């Protein structure tokens, strides 16, 4: 077998870039929690890098990309058996044939499997037992993530075959994690004192640092998803940059108008909202479409921040407003802005003469992902709650996760 050396180099580097997003996410979230919970937050994220790496190599990859089933993968590639020398993965033939070594594909996809459940930690901040968290994301990384990845990413998956488009994980990563976040929050309940007590971020410089790391890593996430070092990768990279920028500016404008000041947290949140939205679109849109996609999503996510107080669920760090809504917005906007002149394997959206057909498929993929992730996660969280309990005791919540779960203190007086 011969591989394209440029593509291989770029995908290997992209794997490292995507891995780096998880510690970036840890700092993005870690800055927003109270100082007594910052280690708890960092630990939940860093631990995902440990646990899910092992689960992905032993079983997760096989369930996502093994076999030719429409709905589920199989166990052919458990323990990565025969993967190093396989000529092609099921479905990855003709137009979809890979030009990189199979192991490069395995490790690149692994990084997505790691960060996706880590996104949930922002919603459950400050009150989840570490033991319950470990089991929850472990089950999730075997049952939920590979299934949705199979549906949407694998050419054999039913949503892929329906024609739904998801370049880098608007549904697989963001809607999937956002739906799971909502499910866990509903089982877990509110933080003590929320929303009566003020729980302001303890270290916004961490949050800005984390945003920078996420933004940097996102180039690997989106442009790496071209699985090649070519014009499409360049298109995805510039789209990523444009949407992050317009998301930030849109958020700051509406924030200035509605709340009086343009804030650093707003700049960070808007950029991330833009990045989330462009994720499904990155390799299917061009021109100035990414600016519109980022800006519309920045506005919409800001307006959705108040949903949690209206409906009374404590999505502590706004995972639902930013990732679920941002992922939905990006997936649906792709139905408008997709352009086959950019990617002949894509489709034309409503604004490019394709009618509403793609929009319908995008809606189907979004609803199916949301429903599956929400239901399975809710059941798993309920079972955990009924058995070992998923919430720390009131005393431990007061002391904070750092001391109660890890016997450590982040900042010595």
């Amino acid at each position, binding site marked *: 077998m011969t591989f394209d050396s440029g593509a291989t180099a770029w995908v290997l580097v992209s794997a490292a870039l995507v891995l780096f997003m998880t510690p970036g996410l840890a700092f993005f979230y870690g800055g927003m929690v109270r100082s007594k919970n910052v280690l708890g937050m960092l630990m939940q994220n860093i631990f995902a890098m440990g646990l899910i790496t092992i689960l992905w190599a032993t079983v997760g990859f096989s369930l996502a990309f093994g076999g030719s089933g429409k709905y589920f993968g199989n166990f052919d590639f458990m323990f990565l058996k025969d993967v190093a020398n396989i000529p092609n993965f099921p479905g990855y033939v003709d137009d979809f044939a890979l030009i990189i070594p199979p192991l490069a594909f395995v490790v690149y996809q692994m990084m997505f499997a790691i960060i996706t459940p880590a996104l949930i930690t922002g919603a459950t901040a400050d009150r989840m037992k570490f033991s319950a968290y470990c089991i929850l994301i472990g089950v999730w990384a075997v049952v939920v993530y590979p299934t949705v990845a199979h549906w949407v990413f694998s050419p054999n998956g039913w949503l892929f075959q329906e024609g739904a488009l998801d370049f880098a994980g608007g549904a697989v990563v963001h809607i999937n994690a956002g739906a799971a976040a909502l499910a866990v929050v509903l089982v877990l309940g509110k933080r003590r004192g929320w929303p009566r007590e003020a729980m302001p971020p303890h270290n916004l410089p961490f949050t800005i640092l984390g945003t920078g790391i996420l933004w940097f890593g996102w180039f690997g996430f989106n442009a790496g998803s071209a699985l090649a070092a070519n014009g499409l990768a360049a298109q995805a990279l510039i789209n990523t940059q444009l949407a992050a920028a317009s998301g930030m500016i849109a958020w700051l404008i509406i924030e200035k108008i509605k709340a009086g000041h343009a804030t650093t947290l707003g700049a960070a949140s808007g950029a991330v909202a833009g990045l989330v939205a462009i994720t499904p679109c990155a390799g299917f849109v061009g021109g100035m479409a990414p600016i519109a996609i980022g800006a519309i999503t920045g506005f919409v996510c*800001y307006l959705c921040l108040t949903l949690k107080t209206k409906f009374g669920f404590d999505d502590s760090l706004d995972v639902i407003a930013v990732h679920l809504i941002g992922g939905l917005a990006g997936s649906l906007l792709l139905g408008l802005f997709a352009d086959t002149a950019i990617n002949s394997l894509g489709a034309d959206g409503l604004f490019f003469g394709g009618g509403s057909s793609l929009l319908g498929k995008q809606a189907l993929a979004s609803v199916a992902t949301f429903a599956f992730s929400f239901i399975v996660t809710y059941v798993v969280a309920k079972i955990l709650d009924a058995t070992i309990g998923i919430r720390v005791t009131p005393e431990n919540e007061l002391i904070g996760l750092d001391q109660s779960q890890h016997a450590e203190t982040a900042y010595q007086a």
Partner: protein
Amino acid sequence: MKLITAVVKPFKLDDVKEALKGAGVQGITVSEVRGFGRQGGHTETYRGAEYNIDFVPKVRIEMVVHDDDVEKTISALRTAASTGKIGDGKIWVTNAERIIRIRTGEEGSDAL
């Protein structure tokens, strides 16, 4: 001997320190404190949610002086710490019954 305690705006600390040195004060103890008075707190906004921050950061300065130096010290403190705006702080004076230097055991004026 009197213990003089002043609570002042943090950014005035350097001016106050220089003024006290000029007034002959031999040593001060400084701590960062939070509190509220007539100035009240302020609001902060995170992702559109407003929080009232009731406690305002201040600096507390403590010093022990000879009875004869109290007026001079208060005047130095007031001049250096004043901005004329609400929240400039307070000064209070209490009796200090005994002063002992730990190293030598000296007491009273000798210990200042």
